[in-house]
């Protein structure tokens, strides 16, 4: 028998000294600090980008502009430019246009797919592995955890957009000439001004995905399965974009969160047209408010049984 075994009688005898000692342990509640409060947000970001899955998604997004660049390079080698998206014709004249082309091609499917995976899994994935209950008894605070997940989702949107942009710039510079950029309106601006526009466009594209982050977060609070939440979110993006093509649904289309996604092209005119871009950002803010509140209402009142 090990020395650790103590009979109940002995245990009760030690009880008195234990009660005396209890004053020493954790004297009352500890104060929350600003650094302590922010720690979860940092931890959340760190966790998001520590996942192999996140890196793989960013990798896929980075491959996309490379493929487009190579295809355009091969196509424009022998024939004059034909149809295709508005930007493709410009790419062969200026490598920087690959940024806009790649974003226009990634925004309907690839970008929202990756965002749907990250946002959809955010709460549901933690529930599925059981880590959610340990975060909550830490105690993370339900509102704080939700805010940290939302912040990490937004940062992922930016990272995903930047993955496309950086890969596009590198590919564009390698395969095509860089120089003055002819805008969609026919005006020409210098390379420096064009880079500023590219940064602006990247910012708008990243923000265009914020409504989807809120939707994904909400779906994520509904289920205990990460896969189900991811699939639902991605499925929703595709469904909404199909609905956006039906003429019969003309009345509701301006309220679909994907409706104005490609409005960033208006920033490639001289002067820039902000109407649709602002409408898009306003719509995203509305979606964040509605689905953020729904996620909060659901998550703060829900039984955590996983």
């Amino acid at each position, binding site marked *: 028998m090990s020395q650790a075994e103590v009979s109940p009688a002995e245990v009760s005898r030690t009880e008195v000294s234990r009660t005396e*000692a*209890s004053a020493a342990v954790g004297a009352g509640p500890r104060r929350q600090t600003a650094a302590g409060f922010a720690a*979860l947000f940092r931890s959340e970001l760190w966790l998001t980008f520590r996942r192999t899955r996140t890196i793989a998604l960013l990798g896929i997004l980075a491959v996309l502009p490379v493929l487009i660049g190579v295809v355009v390079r091969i196509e424009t080698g022998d024939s004059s430019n034909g149809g295709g998206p508005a930007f493709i014709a410009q790419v062969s004249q200026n490598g920087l246009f690959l940024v806009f082309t790649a974003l226009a091609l990634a925004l309907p499917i690839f970008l929202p797919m990756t965002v749907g995976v990250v946002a959809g899994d955010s709460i549901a994935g933690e529930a599925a592995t059981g880590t959610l209950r340990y975060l909550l008894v830490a105690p993370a605070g339900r509102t704080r955890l939700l805010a940290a997940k939302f912040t990490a989702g937004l940062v992922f949107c930016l990272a995903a957009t930047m993955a496309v942009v950086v890969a596009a710039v590198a590919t564009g510079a390698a395969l095509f000439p860089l120089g003055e950029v002819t805008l969609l309106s026919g005006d020409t601006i210098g390379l420096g001004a064009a880079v500023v526009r590219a940064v602006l466009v990247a910012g708008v594209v990243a923000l265009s995905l914020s409504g989807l982050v809120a939707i994904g977060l909400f779906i994520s609070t509904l289920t205990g399965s990460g896969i189900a939440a991811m699939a639902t979110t991605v499925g929703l993006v595709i469904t909404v974009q199909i609905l956006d093509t039906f003429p019969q649904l003309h009345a509701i289309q301006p309220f679909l969160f994907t409706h104005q996604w490609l409005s960033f092209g208006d920033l490639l005119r001289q002067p820039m047209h902000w109407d649709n871009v602002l409408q898009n950002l306003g719509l995203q803010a509305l979606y964040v408010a509605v689905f953020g509140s729904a996620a909060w209402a659901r998550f703060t009142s829900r039984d955590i049984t996983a």
Partner: protein
Amino acid sequence: MTTAPHTEQARGRVAAVGPTPAAAPDDVIRTSGLTKRFQGGQLAVDGLDLTVPRGSVFGFLGPNGSGKTTTIRMLMGLIAPSSGVATVLGAPMPQSVGAVLPRVGALIEGPALYGFLSGRDNLARFDAADPTSDPRTRARRVTEALDRVGLTAAAGKKARAYSLGMKQRLGLASALLQPRELLVLDEPTNGLDPQGMREIRALVREVAAEGTTVFLSSHLLDEIEQVCTHAAVMSKGRLVVQGTVAELAGRAQGRLVVRTPDVAAARDVLVQHRVTDLRTDEARLDGLATAVDEESLPRLCAALVSAGVRVHGFGVERGTLEDAFVALTGEGFDVAG
């Protein structure tokens, strides 16, 4: 003690840190009429009145499905009670999670870890979740917690490569990242080998000796007998009994035990002396000695000897918690709820 109904206030559970009501300083956990009915209609906990005194090692005992984990989830603010009140460290749950839980370490229904993070990074993650914990001391506290559960050597290993016992230890380490007033451990020795069980129990005693109240659920009676000062017994969502372990075991009747190679002959003598509920083994038999008192005990022994029984051992063994449980519920312990 507060009795305000609070199921509707559950949304406010992400409460900011505030002063704790000074009520009931000597009871670390107190519930009254605590009830949980799940959406499917399953009544998991039914009118629980539980009192856990400060400084105790409190065993929360019950067979599978008796409502132990559900109770613990309510105490930790993870699920809202259907009715009744739960008070932890003097504050109502789940409204006071923000103020109460930094002072509570918990292991609920087994450990849950991020498989792609190392043991050390897992602890850092859970520590970051607590807004009252100081990021500057995090690395040191994580190292100390790892050391305390004997995981220092495996600290850098990915948690998915941990054995069940190592995971269980890491879960314990995360409960010990801060000095705690209360440690809630839901079946902490589940899945451990005997050596691992002994180590966890030694750790529980050590933590208790520092003044932390330990609330430990288990379906192992001897585990509770070995480490706990107090115990409560659950059965099918209801509290059967609570009190000190000594009291509970005392409620069980002692059993008369005879060690002899002549089991059959001894059995006849015991039956004549109205010893009931006889159980026989190869070289041992025991029974309920209700009709045997201090005086008749030597006579019974003499009767055995004169009947030619070679008595190797003879005596009354003190009741165990298991006997108490059987006496209290009239059923075996291992029935599912």
